[in-house]
């Protein structure tokens, strides 16, 4: 992927805080990312690294306690942070959509799944009545739900987790958005279903030329499906590169550790390494590099200036003073 074209989505220097009773949580700090049209970008990190918060910021569905302190989110060149709530409401679902973890609780328990798809169609598509119904059934068929006419009337509690995720995907793509954010879409589903759902997302993205951000803690899953991968740690994007390049020559120590901690078929379980330490407390005073306390390559210079963003090769950015290699 070349960075020459205007990206569909560009997150530039985004910093975000949560005001809580126990202090200010600096959830994101100068996060920058871009997504090209039609590509699949993986965002990988431990839980608490800020992946989901970033996606909520892009969608504009942040908790009221969250406050963006700097940065821009450009979607098709428009800064989303300057849009009003009603403008964002128009864009959500139609320009960009999102699917979630725990698909069953992500659906309204007392509304039939067909109605929930129709709600999105009613909002964004100019179809009504019988046409809208046909369109919803057609969407259920596209996400490969067997017997869609009957399933239209089903309630979430009558469907399996995998089926519910398909319904969420149908809702997400109902208004043909340019960007789909999939936040841990297969976590909690059984392994066979995981593969089927991921293939479905990938097929839909390809056939519609829809850009996809896959948010996951599973580097292996991202490697399997994504063109590029961004690695996040404690609210920082520490490394971005094409998937092959990232695995061949990771430059950030955290990425290298993460790859070492990912099981692979050609390596026994004994080769698996765990990453020492945990995420720092984001309410406390933090060093410029939030990984420094866990890092083997830590040097004095790491504490001197703000975290750099160094482009070591075209399209390969690292936030580290002392990268590998």
């Amino acid at each position, binding site marked *: 992927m070349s960075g020459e074209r205007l990206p569909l989505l560009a997150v530039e220097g985004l910093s975000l805080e949560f005001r809580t009773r126990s202090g200010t949580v600096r959830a994101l700090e100068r996060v920058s990312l871009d997504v090209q049209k039609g590509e699949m970008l993986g965002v990988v990190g431990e839980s608490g690294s800020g992946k989901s918060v970033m996606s909520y910021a892009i*969608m504009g*569905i942040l908790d009221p306690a969250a406050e963006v302190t700097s940065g821009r989110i450009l979607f098709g060149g428009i800064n989303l942070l300057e849009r009003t*709530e009603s403008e964002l*409401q*128009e*864009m*959500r*679902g*139609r320009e960009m*959509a*999102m699917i*979630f973890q*725990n698909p069953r*609780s*992500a*659906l*309204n*328990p*007392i*509304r*039939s799944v067909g109605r929930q798809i129709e*709600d*999105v169609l009613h*909002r*964004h598509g100019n179809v009504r009545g019988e046409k809208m119904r046909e369109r919803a059934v057609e969407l259920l068929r596209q996400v490969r739900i067997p017997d869609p006419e009957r399933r239209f009337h089903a*309630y979430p*509690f009558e469907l399996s987790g995998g089926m519910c995720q398909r319904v*969420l995907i149908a*809702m*997400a793509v109902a*208004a043909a958005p340019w960007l789909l954010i999939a936040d841990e879409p297969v976590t909690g589903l059984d392994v066979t279903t995981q593969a089927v759902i991921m293939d479905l997302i990938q097929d839909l993205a390809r056939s519609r030329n829809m850009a996809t951000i896959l948010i996951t803690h599973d580097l292996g899953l991202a490697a399997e499906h994504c063109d590029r991968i961004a690695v996040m740690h404690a609210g920082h994007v520490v490394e971005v590169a094409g998937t092959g390049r990232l695995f061949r020559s990771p430059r950030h120590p955290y990425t290298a550790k993460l790859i070492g901690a990912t099981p692979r078929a050609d390596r026994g379980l004994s080769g698996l390494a765990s990453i020492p330490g945990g995420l720092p407390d984001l309410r406390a005073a933090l060093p410029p590099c939030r990984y420094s306390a866990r890092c083997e390559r830590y040097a004095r210079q790491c504490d001197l200036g703000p975290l750099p963003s160094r482009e070591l090769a075209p399209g390969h950015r690292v936030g580290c003073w002392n990268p590998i290699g």
Partner: protein
Amino acid sequence: MRSGTLTLIGRRLLQAAPAVMGIIVVTFVLTRALPGDPAVFFAGPTADAQSIAQIRKSLGLDKSWPEQFWIYLRDLARGDLGKAVSTGQPVLHELATRLPASLELTLLGLLFAAAAAIPLGVLAATRPGSWVDHLCRLLVTAGVSLPTFFTGLFLVYIFYFLLGAAPAPLGRLHIALVEPARVTGFFLIDSLLARDFEVFRSALAQLALPASTLGIFALAPLARMTRAAMLGVLSSDFIRTARAGGLTSWTVLWVYAFRNAMLPVLTTLGMVFSFLLGANVLVEKVFAWPGIGSFALEALVASDYAAVQGFVLAMALMYVALNLVIDVLYTLIDPRVGVEG
């Protein structure tokens, strides 16, 4: 779904049967275990032992308890609740004339409470920490801590005595007016059916203060539950999905959040209704309301067995009916109910 609802109604009615039987037994025993002898009471202070014994015999109280209970059950099966000794009228007739008065008052009070509490709770939940939220908290505290007879007397003092805006707290209609032709027993409805708007206005004016008194009492638990339920639902995953789909704030709030929050609110509504039936007794006293509560109170003081038993039975049946209605509403709102049960 529809047949499921019918099955549910049938099952609930069957489940209620043992409870109703139990209530019949317990009220029978309790009324007789209470201190006070109705024969002495009705014979009056000047009666001698012979006339008391005569009255006791005429009331059937000289028979043994099992015998009395058997007679009571036999009459009950024929729909005969006995005679209220204090008024000389059959208990069934007393209940039939007084129950609509109480129900009209209670339902209007509940309507008033729901109409105020539910929007207030929703607003408070959507704007936590705002002035609406504080107002909600204030009203909830006030509503809980003010006893109904106090609120009633206070309202009478302000609106009747000081301002003269309300009519005298003396029953269901202005003294000069005639009751509307009886169809439902609810004066508001019957007067409209008879197209007698003067009676309608008077009935409404008489209802305003006692219904408000009950309403203020019922407001607190309803507003509190609505707020809590809305807060819970608004932070759930499917609301986030709805917002991510770009649905309008109105749709998210009312179609997605409110309908889900209605489930616990409905349960509370049922509970509040049964509380109100109890709170009625004092409010009816304050407003000289010819309802079932004041009737029961007088009957209890007079140890009027048949009347007390009839009252408790009527209440129990109403409670069963109320729970049935709530259950049916539940199945209409929540597709999961009835499948699990």
